């Protein structure tokens, strides 16, 4: 099996699975319980939180556990709005955000908020000029994703905060870091990010666990009330097993991710070059330079339906994703690919390949071989 759908989710590392299994059997106490078993669980959470705080180079008190990326985005954005909504009704985001951000924005738009959706260029980057011109006195929040999940473009986060500070220092800055965490350069403190969302299952950890960094100067209102776990921001008995697995995954990741990133950047270049040589009529929807994630490459194959190609590949045990979901009620086109100006046909023929540390050159050679044959077979029918 060649798994190239790592943006959707990653395979948990063996060490992660082992430690989680052990915790479910041995350390199942409720961290809030006063007895020894509860205290042991509390300790384990502390260790996991430390691993994550270390990886992000922030204070341990600034890390909150959630149920995943979607919840982190929701808590960050909605809590900021609930706290500062009186100060202003203007929010800035981009046209290529994940639905868990865009749909929150749509909801606030209906409640009378004014949302600016920044455009992106044909490689998926926002214009800093447009950002600067969009920030107003009543702008309470700028929410921008670090790495785009469909095409891999990396936004210049470090420059964004400078602009925000220059035009309106009161505006808060949230970064959706779900596809970027552990995979691209990040300096939360230096870049003065106020909130940062990330997720466990994108970094070889378990599903159902995520994290949110909130700068310690910020005290946000909770959305979920209850027993005041996570310092009252996110009540509910902690997902102990998930947190332990998440902590372990992040620990291993930060031990060797510098080398891993370098290797994967090379593999991406190799893969792109090979495809360019072997398969005609294609378009790279991802830039191949340093401004895009080494883990993601999005390619449109002309005269091919992405979903058909996906099934051809799966038949050879190669797993990828299309960026346009297909349905009998018509095709739902990717808003990201539309935003970078792709024609409908190019959107329909797009496939996203997402790498992991387990992928080898041989895997990619085989993938290109199967791609070449499949694309030729499909085009024989569609280009008649």
């Amino acid at each position, binding site marked *: 099996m060649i798994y190239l759908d790592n943006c959707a989710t990653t395979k948990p590392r063996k060490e992660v699975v082992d430690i989680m299994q052990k915790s479910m059997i041995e350390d199942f106490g409720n961290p809030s319980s006063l007895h020894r078993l509860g205290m042991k669980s509390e300790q384990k959470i502390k260790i996991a939180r430390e691993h994550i705080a270390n990886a992000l180079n922030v204070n341990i008190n600034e890390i909150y556990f959630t149920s995943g990326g979607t919840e982190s985005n929701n808590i960050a954005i909605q809590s900021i709005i609930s706290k500062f909504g009186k100060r202003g009704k203007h929010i800035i985001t981009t046209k290529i955000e994940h639905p868990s951000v865009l749909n929150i924005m749509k909801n606030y738009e209906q409640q009378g908020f004014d949302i600016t959706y920044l455009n992106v260029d044909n490689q998926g980057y926002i214009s800093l000029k447009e950002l600067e011109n969009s920030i107003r006195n009543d702008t309470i929040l700028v929410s921008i994703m670090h790495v785009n999940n469909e095409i891999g473009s990396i936004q210049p986060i470090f420059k964004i905060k400078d602009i925000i500070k220059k035009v309106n220092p009161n505006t808060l800055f949230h970064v959706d870091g779900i596809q970027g965490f552990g995979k691209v350069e990040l300096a939360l403190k230096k870049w003065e990010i106020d909130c940062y969302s990330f997720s466990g299952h994108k970094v070889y950890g378990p599903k159902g666990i995520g994290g949110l960094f909130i700068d310690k100067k910020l005290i946000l209102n909770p959305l979920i009330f209850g027993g005041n776990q996570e310092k009252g921001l996110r009540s509910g008995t902690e997902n102990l097993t998930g947190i332990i697995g998440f902590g372990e995954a992040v620990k291993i990741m930060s031990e060797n991710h510098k080398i891993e990133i370098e290797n994967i950047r090379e593999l991406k270049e190799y893969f792109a070059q090979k495809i360019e040589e072997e398969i005609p009529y294609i378009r790279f929807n991802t830039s191949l330079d340093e401004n895009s994630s080494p883990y993601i490459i999005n390619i449109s194959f002309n005269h091919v*339906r992405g*979903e*058909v190609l996906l*099934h*051809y590949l*799966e*038949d050879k045990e190669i797993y990828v994703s299309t960026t346009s979901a*297909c*349905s*009998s*009620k018509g095709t739902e086109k990717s808003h990201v690919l539309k935003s970078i100006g792709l024609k409908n046909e190019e959107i329909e023929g797009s496939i996203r390949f997402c790498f992991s540390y387990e992928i080898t050159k041989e895997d990619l050679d085989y993938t290109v071989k199967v791609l070449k044959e499949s694309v030729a077979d499909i085009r*024989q*029918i*569609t280009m*008649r």
Partner: protein
Amino acid sequence: MEKVLSVSLGEIALKGLNRKYFEDQLIKNMRRVIKDIGFEKIYKEQGKIYIEAEEHNFPQMINRLKKVFGLVYISPCIRIEKNEEKIKDASIVAIREKIDKEKINTFKVDTNRADKNFPIKSPELSRQIGGLILQNFNELKVDVHNPDTFLYIDIKQNAYIYTDKIKGYGGLPLGTNGKGLLLLSGGIDSPVAGFLMAKRGLEISAVHYHSYPFTSERAEEKVKDLARILSRYVGRIKMYSINLLEIQKEINSKCKENEMTILSRRFMMKIAGRIAEREGINALITGESLGQVASQTIEGISVTNKSVDIPVLRPLIGLDKVDIIDIARDIETFETSILPFEDCCTVFLPKHPVTKPKIEDILKSEEALDVETLVDKAIENMELIIIE
């Protein structure tokens, strides 16, 4: 006073000498759906079938029995000896239970005396029991035209007292009318067609065509879900799954683009015909409805029909889409049928399909193809899926 379930037979009651055959098949089918719930005994008594079982299991049993073809009504009854006093007591109990469940103002007693040796005639017994109920329940009145509830009294070997008649689908017991092979797609129509023919006693198998990898595995999963819903009515279904892609590729490369659909339809029928022959199946069933889509014009249907000798049953042929949808909702296939992943493969769909094909033209087009070999190959690679 014992509680039993009674089952009334519809059309089966009209059968002459064959009646026992139909009844026995029905009892067999009833046993199949309730055997895991557990029951004491199933017996026949003067035209009806009775089930002895624990009362708390009645609701679940009724729910399943409703889906058994051939039965018209199911009633939870009180069974007693044919004795005037006991009938009186049971009638009061039955009315009290009814009042506890629903708001009732009016009633009517309806007696059916199958045992003519019972001394009190039906109208007289109805009057007596009616009077008794009026005495015992001040709030109730008699309404002989449009009562809120009936109180039924059946005098047979035993006496049976009941108030509710829960409707079944009627029809004929499954398996009393041979076997049919349903061409099952993921759409709204074909499951309904299968249901309607099964209701006439036909045992159902199914064949499904896909174009993997041009279509998704989820599309096939959806068809299996539909077959599973259908199997609540028709029992175990053998489903043959056929990949049509090679055939479609051949047609695509060798025939006119606008004949794609009609030629594919003929292949589907031929393959189904071949499976039917092999499996001893007597007819094909399709969800075609006249004029619904381009391939379902009268010309299209004639040309498709000429690809097989076996009878092709089209129970939906004269139904409007809205009527078909009503049945689909009723049998609970609709929600599944309208899920997406239907068929992403529009690659092979002609832009302007022929709506008035002529058989001569189509036969001529087929000459370009090695039809027999293609059919053989498709059947060779067929998959059998058992739906329970």
